[in-house]
């Protein structure tokens, strides 16, 4: 059964007012089905960061409708959005965004901690994922003791641990060298194919876009082609 994870209808995002007014998104429509691997492409200034923030519930559209796996999220309070992010979205950021003072294990279990899961259960889950990512030996290392590729694997583990409906990757390979980029991308593709995860990758890199089964191009605040 395929169901819709993301439904964006006529999303508009306006910044500023009066003469400085600027439309970052000009009525975007997008539907992402469960199990899709989608790349949102665009050069800088195309509105893809805004798009990513809105999909990730980090920002609100000025107008339009957004239904994330069945819930209308446009009018939710900040705390409700936090709750939805925790339950339904796993983030992978360009610069990993791991907490520098805490071990990989601590970083990865954090989403479950905020969910109220017991430490033992969260640790068990994290170790399972670490095994899958082949980074078990890094569990107690600090981010500063890891390579970029390793940090991104920890970050992907953190995105996976809550078993979210959607994995949202913002330039996941942007800070990595070519070889590492390829392996991280492989990992995401594997998660898509084997685990049937719904993954949205926001990128400016055509190489990344090409490898995804579906790709939308954003230009000047509008979806150019599908």
């Amino acid at each position, binding site marked *: 059964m395929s169901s819709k994870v993301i439904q964006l209808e006529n999303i508009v995002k306006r910044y500023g007012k009066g003469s400085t007014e600027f439309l970052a998104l000009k009525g975007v429509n997008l539907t992402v089905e469960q199990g899709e691997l989608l790349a949102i492409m665009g050069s800088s200034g195309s509105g893809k960061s805004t798009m990513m923030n809105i999909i990730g519930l980090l920002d609100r559209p000025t107008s339009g409708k957004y239904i994330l796996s069945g*819930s209308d999220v446009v009018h939710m309070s900040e*705390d409700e959005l936090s709750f939805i*992010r*925790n339950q339904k979205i796993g983030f992978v*950021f360009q610069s990993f965004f791991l907490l520098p003072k*805490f071990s990989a294990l601590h970083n990865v279990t*954090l989403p479950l901690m905020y969910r*109220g*899961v017991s*430490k033992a259960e969260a640790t068990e889950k994290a170790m399972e994922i670490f095994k899958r990512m082949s980074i078990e030996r890094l569990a107690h290392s600090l981010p500063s003791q890891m390579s970029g590729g390793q940090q991104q694997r920890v970050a992907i583990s953190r995105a996976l641990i809550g078993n979210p409906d959607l994995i949202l990757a913002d330039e996941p390979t942007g800070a990595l060298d070519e070889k590492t980029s390829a392996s991280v991308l492989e990992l995401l593709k594997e998660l898509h194919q084997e685990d049937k995860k719904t993954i949205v990758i926001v990128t400016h890199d055509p190489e990344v876009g090409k490898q995804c089964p579906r790709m939308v191009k954003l230009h000047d605040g509008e979806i150019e082609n599908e």
Partner: protein
Amino acid sequence: MNKIPLSSGMPVTLYFKDAFTNLFSTKLRTFLAVLGILVGCASVVAMLSGGELMTRQALLQFKELGTNLLSIQINDQSSGGSSSQKVTMPEVENLYDVSNNITLVAPYSSLYLDMSYEGTPLNGSIIGATDALSSIMKVKMLKGRFISYLDKLEPYCIVGNDLYNQMKQTSYKDPIGQQININGSFYTIIGVLQHWPQNAFVFADLNQAVIVPLPLSLAMSKYAEINSIIFRLAPNSKIKQTENQLTTYFQGVAPTKSLYFQSAEQIVSQMKKQQQILTLFLGFIGAISLLVGGIGVMNIMLVSVTERKREIGIRKAIGAKARDIRIMFLIESVMLSVFGGIAGVIVGILISFIIAEVKGWGFTLFIWPPVIGFVISAAAGIFFGYYPAYKASKLDPIQTLRSE
């Protein structure tokens, strides 16, 4: 939409662990913030404990003497009136009949005459007393005996502890049995007092005094007269009533004299009031330093919030609610002030102990100054930590994720 809990279910122990990690990663800054609270808390504890010790010490004298004491000083009404009449011994004897409340009357005279011992002048006053003085003032003897009723005009004397020490430096002889020269006449030393804890109640210092029988003292100089009387009253007597009865009596026998009353009860209540004000004042000074410490905590927490915007953004992105962020920072500031508070309580008690040692007071560990100091410190942590924590919780996730 289902109901959303106000905060996440993150266990409190984890908050404390994270707070510890964060505080530990900025050791110097944490140390300085803790130091600020420490100094504030220590001064509150030390000042309050010191004030309490002082009060305790001041009231100690009455614990032994009892509070059912009344003293009068008999002064000439008109200054310079040379030939005013003196209060006589029989008039003093009759005081027992003046009021039922009076159980013991201890009249004494004090005068200053030249004294010497073994040719060395002595510094002190001469007190003419009866055995009643010893029993009211709970005077203890180091050697020999006190004045007795039978001594009357015998040339005997008792020396105070300080004078005794002065004499021992003059001569190797044991002063007991030796003689003091007072104004040309010799008086045999029959007793030495133990050190006498002074009190606000007697107008003479027995430690610096040579005590002679009262009738003898009245014969020693034409200026000698009974100028103070101490009364012991029956328990629960009405002091005001007794004072009035005494006033009436003395108006009859010695109309040119004016009386100055002092009761132990009155002194105690005055002292308590004064000490309370003092303690309050000291506590206030301590509270100001604690305020400064609290502002230090706030300052450091604000810096911490600014520096950790990225962390706040990440935590929010993965599901922290405003309240989670608030609790996180609040726990850090409370930890700072609780560390400071604990250390401050220890240092404060230590300081009050040192004060007690230096001043020669008995040290007592009072419970409430440390409790107050600690509670105020912890409260300062919450109060001054709340604004930074609130500010952190209101930060916008996108802004914070973008910040470097």
